[in-house]
């Protein structure tokens, strides 16, 4: 199997501070990779670097696109990178209000992404928006409502729909369930699980919540002070922790 994404010795510095220090990993199709770390470990910086939101100093990020070309994301031109982020990649932000356009309706939020990729038929766009609302379990009748009338959980599900409508191959998620109450989190995680399977998504998921990775992630990486370690299967890392930090993390969990 050909890897979808190869990250090799990615390093991001802020002066003398090594936010990401020689990070390397490979992501295959259909895999969910969780990144756990405490605040300040560099996990969000890593995600932002991979997504091209911030530049990084050293290393290579190589992506195998839908038409089987290997793209070096660092040297990719800005217009191409932005097109990639709208078609083959997706980024779910922790706060859905940062990932949605609050001044347009729910349907428009989803439809906009279709317009971006050249869809022009209003009927088709509306039909697809309705289907996606259904897919993320938002009542179809809310299609013409504005996102600020939605609950936090619904906004997050709307963000998911907006991102998934263009059938991305990789989705980056930064604390997607942060700030949601437990039952809402549960519903969102169930939804993500089935979408990963039905759409054969690859996901890089940043979180500090072990419960989320147990449920969603096939593989788990731990980050501490910009360093990456323990990039194995989730159950291997959590059931047989080797690294002192991993042991500390697992022992500190309230729910086993």
């Amino acid at each position: 199997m050909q890897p979808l994404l190869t990250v090799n010795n990615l390093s991001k510095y802020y002066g003398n501070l090594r936010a990401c220090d020689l990070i390397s990993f490979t992501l295959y199709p259909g895999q969910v990779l969780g990144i756990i770390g405490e605040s300040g470990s560099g996990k969000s910086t890593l995600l932002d670097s991979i997504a091209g939101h911030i530049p990084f100093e050293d290393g290579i990020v190589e992506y195998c696109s839908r038409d089987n070309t290997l793209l070096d994301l660092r040297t990719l031109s800005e217009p191409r990178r932005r097109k990639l982020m709208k078609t083959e990649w997706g980024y779910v932000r922790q706060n859905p209000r940062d990932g949605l356009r609050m001044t347009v309706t729910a349907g428009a939020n989803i439809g906009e992404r279709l317009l971006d990729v050249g869809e022009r038929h209003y009927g088709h766009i509306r039909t697809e928006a309705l289907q996606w609302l259904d897919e993320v379990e938002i009542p179809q009748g809310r299609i013409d409502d504005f996102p600020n009338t939605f609950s936090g959980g619904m906004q997050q599900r709307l963000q998911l729909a907006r991102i998934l409508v263009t059938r991305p191959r990789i989705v980056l998620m930064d604390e997607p369930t942060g700030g949601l109450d437990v039952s809402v989190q549960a519903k969102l995680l169930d939804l993500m699980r089935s979408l990963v399977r039905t759409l054969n998504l690859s996901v890089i998921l940043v979180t500090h919540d072990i419960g989320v990775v147990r449920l969603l992630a096939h593989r788990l990486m731990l980050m501490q002070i910009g360093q990456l370690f323990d990039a194995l299967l989730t159950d291997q890392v959590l059931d047989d922790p080797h690294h002192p930090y991993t042991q500390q993390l697992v022992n500190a969990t309230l729910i086993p």
Partner: protein
Amino acid sequence: MATLQVLPTPKAPPQTQALLQADQLYKSFVLHHQGGVKLPVLEGVTLTVNPGECVALQGPSGSGKSTFMRSLYANYRVDSGSIWVKHQGRWVDLPQLEAHQLIAVRQHTLGYVSQFLRVIPRVPAVDVAAEPLLELGVDLDEAQTTVRELFSRLNLPERLWQLSPTT
């Protein structure tokens, strides 16, 4: 037409009818936050399992039975030794596999039944059991039919099928 059997590295097991061969497994635990104490649990364990065999691991509490089982599933990582599994006709050594290859072995070849069933609380039993088939690309209806047949065979009362296993 005869096909060529490609054997893996020189350490591969000699007989080919076996399905699993654990060779000289060593496994210890180091508890970093409890004074760095080292607990050796498996010391040179070897086991061969042939098709149709049912092997019972018997021993006193703390003798390493669970550790051994979990190591065979690669849930626990061994310090040294090989775990040869016949996966799709070829021998593979679990500790040497990459993550995506291990996932494939678990999807197609190796199963694990635990006394502690860890499931998402809200999903019905029939969907929990169908998920591995769905991951292999099997159609939803077909997967659920297969599961229902198995549930009947295992004498699981039908009224429980739509309930979460945590019930």
